[in-house]
């Protein structure tokens, strides 16, 4: 059945509040029929498809601080909610300290879309396929959430509750993402498997990050986060622990990849089967972890040669 009714958007009222208080008030008063929006790249599509039909769209991009990207060498990177992905990619601090996030952003849709799409919007949309979620989780990201009560901070690892579901409450606005300074020597990789090379959602996405840690038996810690294979971004904890507990070798990487594949619970849909996704988690986790491991070693060699 053809559901969509509009080649274009249905009618709605555009609200542009001047302050956080005003925005939170409005969203609270119109809880049933108002939505905040940033780039709109998800909201507009769903409105066009008739899935969402809000009476009010509350544009929070102009609120104080929303457009800021700020790096503190002592603590980390703060990305305002309205900073679009192309700005995140272009920022020198991202490239230097969080290149994994820049890579993840580059894999999202097209350049044009990334001029609208935001990392915080990607997070709030809470799609299991969200390409930047893995990087933000790997860096232990914290969301700054504003409401009429003030600001609360939420660890991203606690934020996702299901497809499209988060701990965000009515009247709350995600204002910024904070990424603490990465561990020294961190190396990351994001591998996205889509059906085409541009603009498809990920069939499987694998985010891997590794860094030296003398406290770990293997001397390294790894983060491995999977997209599109569970109701929320999936942290493959067993796989991460596996590589911390024993020496990192091709065999232990295969073992970690197998654990990751076992941990996920993908679904069948028009884009691919659960079986294929599980296979891909195994193959691409191995590929991502191997790539991170090679980068870590290359870096080690470079350090030695530069001494």
């Amino acid at each position, binding site marked *: 059945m*053809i559901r*969509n009714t*509009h080649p274009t958007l249905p009618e709605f009222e555009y609200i542009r509040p001047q302050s956080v208080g005003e925005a939170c008030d409005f969203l609270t008063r119109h809880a049933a029929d108002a939505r905040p929006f940033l780039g709109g790249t998800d909201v507009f599509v769903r409105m066009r498809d008739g899935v969402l039909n809000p009476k009010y769209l509350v544009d929070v991009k102009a609120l104080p601080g929303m457009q800021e990207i700020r790096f503190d060498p002592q603590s980390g990177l703060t990305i305002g909610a309205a900073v679009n992905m192309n700005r995140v990619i272009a920022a020198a601090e991202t490239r230097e300290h969080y290149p994994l996030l820049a890579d993840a952003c580059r894999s999202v849709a097209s350049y044009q879309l990334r001029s609208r799409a935001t990392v915080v919007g990607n997070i709030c949309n809470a799609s299991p396929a969200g390409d930047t979620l893995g990087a933000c989780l790997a860096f232990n990201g914290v969301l700054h959430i504003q409401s009429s009560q003030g600001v609360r901070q939420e660890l991203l690892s606690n934020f996702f509750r299901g497809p499209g579901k988060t701990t965000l409450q009515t009247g709350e606005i995600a204002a910024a993402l904070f990424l603490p300074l990465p561990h020294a020597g961190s190396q990351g990789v994001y591998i996205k*498997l889509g059906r*085409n090379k541009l603009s498809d959602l990920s069939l499987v996405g694998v985010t891997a990050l590794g860094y030296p840690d003398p406290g770990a038996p293997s001397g390294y810690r790894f983060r491995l986060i999977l997209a599109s294979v569970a109701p929320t971004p999936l942290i493959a904890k067993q796989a991460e622990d596996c590589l911390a507990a024993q020496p990192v070798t091709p065999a232990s990487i295969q073992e970690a990849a197998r654990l990751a594949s076992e941990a996920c619970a993908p679904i069948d849909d028009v884009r691919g089967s659960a079986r*294929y996704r599980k296979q891909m988690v195994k193959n691409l986790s191995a*590929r991502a972890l191997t790539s991170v491991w090679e980068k870590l070693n290359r870096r080690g060699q470079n350090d030695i040669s530069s001494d």
Partner: protein
Amino acid sequence: MSIIGQSVPRLDALGKVTGQAQYPGDISLPNQAYLKILFAGRPHAVIRSIDTSQAEALPGVIAVFTAKDMPVNEYGLIMPDQPVLCGPGSAKPYTDHVRFEGDQVALVVAESEEIATRGRDLIRVVYEDLPILSDPVQAMQPESPRLHPERDSNVFCHYRIRKGDVEAAFAAADVIIEGEYRTPYQEHAFLQPEAGVSYMDEQGRVTVIVAGQWTHEDQEQIAHALGLPLEQVRVIYPAIGGAFGGREDMSVQIVLALAAWRLAQRGTPRPVKIVWSREESIVGHHKRHPYLIRAKWGARRDGKLLAAQMELIADAGGYAYTSTKVLGNATLMCTGPYEIPNVMVDSYAVYTNNVVTGAFRGFGGPQAAFAAETQINRLAQALGLDPVEIRLKNALQEGSLLSVGTPLPKGVSITQVIEQARAASLKWAAEPPPGAPSLRRGVGYAAAFKNVGFSFGAPEQCTAAVTLYGGREIERAVVAHAGADCGQGAHTVMAQMAAEALHLPLERIEMVVSDTAQTSNSGSASASRLTFMAGNSIKGACEQALQKWQAEERPAAATYQYRPPKTTPYDPQTGRAEPNFAYGYVAQAVLLDVDVETGRIFLRQVICADDVGRAVNPQQVQGQIEGAVVQASGYAILENFITQDGRIRTDKLSTYLIPTILDTPEQVESLILEYADPIGPWGARGMGEMPFLPLTPAIIAAVHEATGVWFHEFPLTPERVLRALKP
């Protein structure tokens, strides 16, 4: 210097680049109303009743139309087997049957699109669902319920070819290769979804501005359904945003005409506009036919083909559309561009409750070429022969007899295109790029031929009118031609040919195009025919106009109808026919890498050697080759149209993906060959479809070389490839 062979800028380039060009959806008329269609949304049912009262009562709704408002409630390019609007109230029996999801049930005309949509949702239809036939093989069985109760079978077309004695030849063969092949749907996915505006023009004609492929056929279909004489219907094409065969059948044409005409009859004439959403477009127009092809080929040890036995079953969906013609082509092309002494073909077009299928670039050729070329590639492998050598050994030559027992028209160049594609591919590296241990490399070859123009006895003609203005010298030449420029550059090429024939600079040619009130019947923009047919008609008209000019007529005007050599239909028993008056020949080589860990195919290089006879505008020819290769790469690898119990599950471009710029082959090398067609204008052949045909089997062969696996179905999605690699 001749203007034939010059890559002159397209006449429409500036308008399209600057956004000035008007596509149907861009056109708005004062005081227009908006039309929304209620689609059936179910694959098989009888409509017991339609209650439009709530919709009509909605403020802003101007009118609601159903089957009872349709004077002659039927249409169809080949046979009028589809109701324009499904529902009770028509004189014709069984027009209350719904036979696929995209059947149209009611039309709502309103002050705005929003209101029309709300009105649509207020229409109450009582359906009695019928069993859904979604498997064509099952639908062929005599005991299966019939979709069209007045017919005695769901099989509505069956062709037979009987040449020689295949059984005796198989007995004598050193090797026999059998295969069962399945081809997928393909959605045209043109940039511009269906749209249009209708109104009563100043002469009282029902006028429809729409994008199509044949103005005069649209005019006929509208006139038939409305019960009007032809001259009271006018069809105009503005800029067209792609077609590829997908606009050959009716989508919004008849319903737009009906709405404007009925409003005028009620004394409230208003223009009516419609724009389909992408979902409406995907559900509402036909697709490329899925085919089931069973093949058995026998050859001698030295590679000489002895016999081919083929069975083809085409899933037509709920209505015929152009299925019989598509099947005719596939039946001829399923034995490849080869001379085979013994041939037996049985082919069937079958009604099912799946989405309708019809014309799409290649028109049965791609499905047939996939089976034929994979058969010959497998034969080569079985015999330890080179895939190019085995082709050259069997390739059609001047005077060769086709499977239908008659020779090809002169100008056969399949050997040349195969040799040149091969020669250009010798430079390729045998190894995948370093640093990617999971990649496996393969090279594949395939060849094909494709008719130019209408086949098998279908009436074929093209008419042009040329008027020369001026005094001592020709100051201006007006060329009136109905031929549709769907984006392929046809009008530019027509103007070039007129300039050449009149010995005038291009700037003095003025084109009047695609308006049934101002131009004569050109036939369609399909079958790779427009350059060939329009060229011959324009050439003839120009020559006659020049004669009149020399006889001092001012202005000097001439209308010329070009008629190509006659063709004949399949003999019902033997298939003997003179199928076509012209062909184009093409061969391709592809280089690809397969990632054996993900199943992904990376299409690196494509060489396309295409004999176009004469490239009137080489840049446009190259564009057609590259476009066809990209579209065919989507067909072969990416585009995965999914239906389930007659319902489309991929009704968006986010679920049905087509290649993006990053998915195109790294390089497409167009070898534009010019072996003149003896009757083509300036030697030109048609070429719009040919580069589509060989790509899939060439990719299949390359994947085999890379992985050792033959695929009998596609698209070669990573998942399908990986499953075959790791059972």
